[in-house]
């Protein structure tokens, strides 16, 4: 009990100071995000979140995204139930043994054009659970991953910012591919 209390007291309240992130506030971030979504996904991006053995930390952050402060719905982003309805797959956690088949099926069930994003350190390289017997260490070992959102767990704003970065990059790559098509 004593060690837990010590850990709570010592950890810093602010994990990542805002100005350090040099990022804009949510409002302007959101506007840019919705403009790029309009360009890429005709103004409606539906995301399917797959918890592949995650510690549920990333899920908390993503749920926070749809609260009244962040409210990503106004930028045209929606969390959907079935991968069939989704354009983007958020995969969190180092893929555990029993979730492998489920993850593969989800990937197969998502119609093209789709983007797979590994969210949280666990998904990227196994994080705290690296090299344990029950996990694959990273999502890319199971399904092809396009982008990554670091952080254990990444705060909602970080998720939003990285989402914007992801969309900008896909924009550039689609412009390039459409030119050489």
């Amino acid at each position: 009990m004593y060690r837990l209390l010590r850990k709570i007291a010592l950890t810093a309240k602010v994990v990542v100071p805002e100005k350090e992130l040099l990022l804009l506030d949510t409002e302007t971030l959101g506007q840019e995000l919705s403009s790029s979504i309009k360009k890429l996904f005709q103004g409606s991006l539906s995301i399917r979140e797959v918890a592949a053995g995650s510690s549920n930390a990333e899920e908390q952050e993503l749920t926070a995204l749809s609260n009244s402060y962040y409210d990503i719905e106004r930028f045209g982003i929606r969390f959907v139930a079935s991968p069939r309805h989704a354009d983007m797959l958020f995969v969190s956690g180092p893929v555990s043994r029993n979730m492998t088949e489920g993850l593969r099926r989800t990937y197969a069930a998502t119609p093209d054009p789709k983007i797979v994003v590994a969210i949280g350190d666990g998904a990227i390289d196994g994080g705290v659970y690296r090299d344990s017997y029950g996990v694959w260490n990273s999502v890319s070992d199971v399904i092809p991953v396009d982008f990554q959102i670091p952080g254990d767990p990444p705060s909602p704003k970080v998720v939003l910012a990285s989402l914007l970065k992801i969309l900008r990059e896909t924009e550039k790559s689609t412009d390039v591919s459409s030119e050489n098509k």
Partner: protein
Amino acid sequence: MEFLLTPASVLLLFAFFFIGSVGAVFIERLFSDNGKMAGFWGHGFALLGSLLGLAISVSVLFFGQGIAFTLPTVFPNFLLDFRLDGIAAFFFGIISLVSALASIYGFGYQKHFYGKYRLGVFSFFYNAFIASLLLVPIANHALFFLLAWELMSVASYFLVVFENQKEENIKAGFLYFLMTHFGTVFVMIAFFLAYKATGSFLFDDWRAATGTITPLIQGIIFGAALIGFGTKAGIIPLHIWLPEAHPAAPSHVSALMSGVMVKTALFMLFRFFFDFFPGAPMEWGLVIILIGSLSALLGILYALSENDIKRLLAFSTVENVGIILLGLGAGVTFFSIGLESFALFSLAAALYHTLNHAIFKSLLFLGAGSVVEATGTRNMESYGGLIKLLPFTAGFFLVGSLAISAFPPFNGFASEWLTFQSLFIGMTSAEMIIKVVFFIAIGSLVFTSGLAAACFVKTFGATFLARPRTEEAKNAKEVSVFMLLPMGILALLSFLLGINATTVVASLIAIIASIGLIRPVTLQFPFSEFIQARADFAAILPLESIALLLGLVFLLSFGAIWFVTRSRKIVVGPTWDCGTPLGPRGEITSGSFSRSLVTIFRGILRPTRQSTVEYHDEDMRYFIKSQEIRTSMSDPYRKGIYQPIGVVLHFLASQARRIQSGNVNMYILYLFLTLIILLLWATHV
């Protein structure tokens, strides 16, 4: 064409059936190909006879000229009197149409019996059954009718118990035999009362003597006729034989029994209430409507809780008979309160539903027959995914389900719409009692059509969609073309009858008018009049334009969407079920589909549920090895009505046995005493 209007054609028809039946038995002797030739012979002549019957009825209806003739017989008071007027020709047509198609189906279905059962015997009873079915509407003499009625019951009994290796078929046959003869007793009561009241067995005399019957006698006659023909039609309390007997018979026979034999009973009810003794008091109409709404609602509820595909269709026959009775009852009520045009309208609705039910119910039964033929079992829980293995059967079955759930472009909708309209008219009539009864009728009809849609989603879904659940369903193969052709014709018919509903309704009104409801009894009926009536019906029931509109809008939207998304590709992947690997038991079964509705109506259906649990070790009851849950429906009629009657009868029988002392002399003493008593009574009375 004139030949078809002469009595000779009717006799030729029965000659065909006679040759078909008797010939088949000999053929089976000659050829040792386990009945193949006999089967073809029997079904072939049945087909010939029914096609001739169809031609006769069409020519009678088209030329508007009936056929009537009598054949004298050896016995004094027994004339073979035939009378094929408008209404009889209508039923004659339905029967011959369905039996023609069933016979074609029979060619394909008979290989089901090679080596196992004797096809010669089957053809004998099959032809006898169709002949008696065709005899019933045209018999014009009470005893002649009873002969045809009895022949029909006996022939159908032998067809029900034909597959005698299965124990439950024998039991079903016995129950069927018992119940039909229970009904025939009441039919006889009605006939003999009518004979006593009018002094003759000829139906023509009954029609002429309408004035002389006292209301009491007329009441008893109606009551007896209702119970007698009700048993055969399968109204609710007397229906328990129907879901046992119809599935037991071979499929094309159960299509005949369900589609057509039930209608002969309704035909006679129609004759009794409108032809022989018109002017029944209003109460009879209300009684028929109440029986109809009860049968409709309970019929579809039992159908919903069924897992055996043919029993489900049999229960749905009970439901549709209920709907027909609604139309009939409305007709009687309107006729008694003087609204003749509305009476004609609701009777046309009833007859139209009779025609429609004959078509889509036989389509469904033939479909079920080919599914049973392909998979070998009747249990819906073991079907699944058959649409990919039996594509045509699935398509026709879908058309049948759409028609029976009364959806617009098909014929089921046309007749149910008409029944609704006649009930709405009744609802706005003056008397309070009529309003209440019509309210109940509309309520039950609405719930019935809703539940019917649910029931046939379950049937079609559990049987044809998703993945095969068992081995039998996996290696099912499409049935032969003989079986698909009749189903195709029936599916086309149910669409065509839906489209030009106005023509059918107008001609039905012309037919009903011909039996003396409005004008004196005539063999002829004014077909020209019906052409004019067709116009004002077109405004009321515009089914053709609905079908046209639906087609146009469908093409428009399909084209637009295809154009917009033409460059998109379709990837075929495994079913997404939240990632879980899906075994055959993953999808919903028919029992679990109807579970929610059955739980809602548990007051009526009283589902029973036993679960047996087996633990690894008995005393520590934590780790369950296996658990089995058995759900079934309790049959309140068997427990509530027929069991007590059985007990009472058994008690009486055991008392009666006491006089059976086994001593011959005692019996002769009883004889002697009765002789003395009779002599005394005869001389003193």
